[in-house]
């Protein structure tokens, strides 16, 4: 069974559109994350979220918003897509944000291409 799943795997869309990427984890973890990996393979955290707290990386444009219907899901909604949003987006989860021995479990990624 897939621990962290994302849909869609590929997303091709036009500039200016609004799109969502879904993420689900079946690990019972408390915290979920969204990362952006650019063409140079840098992996940057965008959000971390549990049922108590949303931490937003200050560099993330407010066109990006996480939405969590329940503890097992953290979807990423993007408004007014721009060319620079093209990247691979990874969802991840962990037991507890900031725990000393915590590790993260990653989804397979969603490759977003904005034309």
């Amino acid at each position, binding site marked *: 069974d897939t621990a*962290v799943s994302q849909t869609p795997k590929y997303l091709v869309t036009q500039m200016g559109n609004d799109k969502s990427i879904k993420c689900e984890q079946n690990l019972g973890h408390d915290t979920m*994350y969204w*990362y952006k990996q650019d063409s*140079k*393979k*840098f*992996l*940057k*955290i965008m959000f*971390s979220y549990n049922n108590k707290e949303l*931490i937003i990386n200050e560099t993330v444009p407010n066109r990006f918003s996480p939405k969590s219907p329940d503890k097992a899901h953290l979807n990423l909604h993007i408004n007014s897509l721009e060319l620079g949003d093209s990247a691979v987006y*990874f969802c*991840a989860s962990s037991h507890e*944000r*900031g725990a*000393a*021995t*915590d*590790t*993260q*479990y*990653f*989804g*397979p*990624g969603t490759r977003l291409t904005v034309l």
Partner: protein
Amino acid sequence: SQQGEEDPQALSIQEGENATMNCSYKTSINNLQWYRQNSGRGLVHLILIRSNEREKHSGRLRVTLDTSKKSSSLLITASRAADTASYFCATRQGDMRFGAGTRLTVKP
């Protein structure tokens, strides 16, 4: 900002050889973790070393940590073609911070 920085950016070796990758970071940490990413896949956790540990082993993996130099190394012994992947170090200081990775190619 990025926390870990891996060195080299790319490494190509023959099967059976050892591969060593280095990671440097800038601030104090709680732990340092190494992840592997196969092409087109998500990252997979390999090993975690706490800030009070100096060396850790897991199968063919050996990780060292030198907090005085703010650096870590990952050694893969007796490499296999299946070890071909990108390897990332990540440091935890609150949130996780990843480097850009070392791309390892193991030729059969």
